[in-house]
């Protein structure tokens, strides 16, 4: 059942471990690195897939006062309902025995075994009577129809994999394992275990026992259980219609039969022949060339400008946070006791923080974040994660709860915006140069965010740093896209690789890479067409472009004005890229480029939403409409404007 249980301090020292079987890979390390330190400690569980073998599910609880973490690891295919109780029980028992610099706890194993057997027995008791209940419609296909993301970690953060859904699916699986002969478990059996376990929001939201009398498979129930939106067939058809208009046109153009042309004989040349007989070299750009002149590169791009580092921001922040913060704690049990409690908390710093103390301050901060354009569920998850890390901690003397909460939130925001991988593109270009190939950057995003404009800005910056870029026009759909890039290229004096319209972007990109390699260009920037995240065929086309050509950097271009849609866009883009990849390690979004940041003064919350959802760092920020308006992210100023 349970494979491994560990207790360790937040500083990294392992205090006690209980091992039933050898573990594949390093699940606990991965949990700390990819979940707890990524502000996802508020989630209920997390999945780890080792390099070889089946995956594990990890559940944890924190004791913030002593700085301890309790982790339980078990097989992903199992559903163990007693883990939450086990974690709570072990936490209580260990807290009593814990001494700060002690690493030996000899008597604890017996105690742990006792708690484990107790929890298992209680869980078995609850399960037992339900097995004999009448079974309803089969949910046999539910396990198979769950979306199989290639990265199992994404399932934990996905909006569909809440505790209830995964518990229902997995409970059904265990049910099927137990009696495969009988028709498979209905949802009615799940009501009781769900109701008594500690999982949040435990009532199953989709139970509709009255309709489960049919023997066949009920698609309506399936959709309700999975919590999916309205049936997709209608909307898909309309979307496919709009995307298919490109198709028939293409076919029509190719199917036009070639007519035989009459040969021209004789000396007499008509005036119309003058053009066909003119073999002189045409000037690049044609008649519009007098409007385009090459710009000079003397104006420095704002990427390289030093941003001022305000060291006293933290002090300002704390002051403003405490001034604007909500009052500390609501009265519990009379005026005198609340007064004593307030004094003991803020002045002497002895009482530990409870959820009731933190929640008013957090609600206020969440509202403030949402006012600054952070997506609603990202703000919620963030606040939940901060709460789980603050609960049980002791206040320092003379600090208010609101100050401490604001400080914790500020740290969390800084942690989210700190890049996890290097954002030094010049270095990576040098590395690619050393290998004798061009550095390929692909710009993806939805319609109208500013991909082509910001591609030109990045080209300008690369030119200023002495590199030789080349642009590939793989937006073969939008009218005027190729001409727009031609204009940029003439002004910047950069070569353009284009094959016109109505061509397969993946093939154009492959040819462009070969061309750049032959001509020994340093960087190749690939412009793609904007596409909505729900548009199946276009997302498939994008995925094939990326997976065929293996670019070095996939930059998602998003605008700072986007609201809650940012979450949806990035999740779906990443999901599509992962699903349609053929290899085991799909190439997902590597970096973000946030545009139109000059139009939002304070409301920079879209950056937080995008970085939280994709875990990709922000490489550049577009802050204007000229070539020099490209900046790097200044974490301190963004956090300051969010919490002002």
């Amino acid at each position: 059942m349970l494979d491994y249980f560990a207790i360790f301090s937040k500083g990294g020292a392992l205090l006690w471990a209980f091992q039933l079987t050898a573990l594949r890979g390093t699940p606990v390390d991965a949990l700390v690195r990819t979940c707890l330190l990524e502000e996802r400690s508020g989630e209920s569980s997390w999945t780890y897939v080792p390099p070889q073998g089946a995956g594990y599910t990890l559940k944890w609880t924190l004791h913030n006062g002593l700085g301890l973490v309790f982790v339980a690891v078990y097989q992903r295919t199992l559903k163990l309902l007693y883990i939450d109780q086990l974690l709570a029980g072990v936490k209580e028992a260990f807290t009593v025995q814990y001494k700060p610099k002690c690493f030996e706890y000899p008597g604890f194993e017996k105690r742990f075994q006792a708690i484990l057997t107790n929890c298992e027995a209680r869980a078995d008791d609850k399960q037992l009577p339900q097995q004999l209940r009448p079974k309803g419609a089969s949910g046999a296909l539910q396990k198979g129809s769950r979306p199989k993301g290639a990265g199992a970690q994404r399932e934990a953060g996905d909006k569909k994999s809440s505790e209830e859904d995964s518990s229902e699916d997995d409970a059904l699986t265990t049910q099927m394992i137990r009696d495969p002969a009988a028709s498979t478990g209905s949802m009615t059996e799940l009501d009781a275990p769900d109701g008594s376990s500690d999982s949040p929001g435990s009532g199953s939201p989709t139970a509709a026992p009255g309709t489960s009398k049919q023997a066949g498979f009920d698609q309506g129930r399936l959709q309700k259980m999975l919590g999916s939106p309205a049936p997709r067939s209608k909307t898909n058809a309309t979307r496919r219609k709009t995307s298919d208009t490109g198709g028939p046109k293409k076919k029509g153009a190719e199917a036009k039969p070639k007519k035989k042309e009459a040969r021209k004989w004789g000396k007499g040349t008509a005036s119309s022949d003058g053009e066909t007989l003119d073999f002189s070299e045409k000037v690049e750009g044609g008649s519009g060339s007098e409007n385009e002149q090459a710009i000079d590169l003397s104006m420095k791009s704002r990427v390289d400008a030093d941003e001022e580092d305000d060291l006293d921001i933290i002090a300002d922040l704390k002051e403003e946070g405490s001034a604007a913060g909500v009052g500390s704690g609501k009265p519990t049990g009379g005026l005198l006791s609340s007064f004593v409690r307030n004094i003991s908390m803020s002045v002497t710093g002895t009482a530990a923080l409870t959820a009731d103390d933190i929640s008013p301050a957090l609600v206020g901060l969440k509202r403030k974040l949402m006012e600054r354009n952070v997506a609603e569920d990202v703000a919620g998850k963030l606040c939940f994660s901060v709460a789980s890390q603050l609960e049980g901690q002791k206040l320092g003397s003379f600090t208010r709860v609101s100050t401490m909460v604001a400080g914790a939130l500020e740290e969390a925001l800084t942690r989210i915006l700190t890049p996890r991988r290097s954002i030094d593109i010049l270095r990576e270009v040098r590395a690619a140069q050393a290998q004798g190939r061009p550095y390929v950057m692909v710009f993806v995003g939805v319609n109208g965010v500013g991909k082509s404009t910001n591609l030109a800005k990045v080209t300008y910056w690369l030119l200023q740093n002495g590199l030789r870029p080349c642009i590939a026009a793989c937006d073969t759909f939008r009218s005027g896209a190729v001409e727009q890039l031609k204009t940029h290229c003439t002004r910047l004096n950069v070569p353009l690789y284009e094959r016109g319209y109505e061509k397969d972007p993946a093939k154009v990109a492959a040819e462009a890479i070969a061309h750049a390699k032959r001509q020994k260009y340093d960087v190749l920037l690939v412009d793609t067409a904007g596409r909505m995240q729900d548009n199946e065929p276009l997302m498939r086309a994008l995925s094939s472009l990326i997976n065929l050509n293996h670019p070095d950097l996939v930059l998602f271009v998003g605008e700072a004005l986007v609201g809650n849609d940012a979450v949806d866009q990035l999740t779906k883009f990443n999901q599509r890229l992962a699903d349609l990849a053929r290899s085991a390690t799909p190439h997902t979004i590597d970096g973000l480029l946030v545009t139109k940041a000059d139009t939002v003064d304070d409301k920079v919350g879209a950056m937080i939403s995008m970085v939280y959802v994709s875990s990709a760092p922000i490489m550049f920020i577009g802050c204007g409409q000229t070539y020099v308006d490209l900046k790097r992210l200044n974490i301190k100023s963004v956090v300051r404007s969010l919490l002002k």
Partner: protein
Amino acid sequence: MEQDIRASLQLDSLPERVSHPSTALSLAGLVVLLLLLTLVRSWLKGPKGKSVLILGPCGSGKTTLFLQLRDSSIHQGTVASMQENVDTIPIQLPNGSSKLVQLVDVPGHPRVRGKFRTYLDKTRGIIYIVDAVDFTPHKTATAEQLYEVLEQGLVRKRRMPVLLVCNKGDQGAKAHTTSFIQKQFEKEIDQLRSTRRTLGDSAAADLLPKADMPFTFEALSKARGAQVSCCGASAKSGLYSFTRLGFSNDRMS
């Protein structure tokens, strides 16, 4: 001027004897003197911090080293750190005396490794640990992290000595040699210098004054006086010779 002092100290509300001008002046003088004294004290205390930072990438053995130095055993092992470990330990110096040193083990995870900047104020030396076995796939990221440490203003100004430790030497042939790792670092930092300089980063220019000279740790010591030394170690098996070598290099005596 007396009028101003009176007004600022609101002397009109005080009793008669205090509002005498000489008393007022002496009060003001006392306050100023106290202020000066505290300033001088903090200035004298100055850069004589007592901390040694243990930095490095994820999984290189920082917490193991910390536990080894503090408790002389690694107990049950370690997992990835979420927070820094801070403790004061007595160190035996080669000349026989012992000194109290504050060890700070900062986690290597990219999101939290920036916390070392808050401890730089009291730092006397830095230990930078790398994994000698699993070195080559991560050498670029590790070199970038080392570069970020070396370019910090306080590190350069106070010429903090840096000890490069190539850990996991107990794995014998699988571990790379110290000289190999040192050369790889020098190459990577040289490249970083050139790319960072084009970004207008003034620290890159300061790291080594001459741009055309290839970067080596010796050149850095000569130019900046900040010593960077390398040594191999195995934190798991516990090396006392390392300790002495390390701390005598750090000029703790």
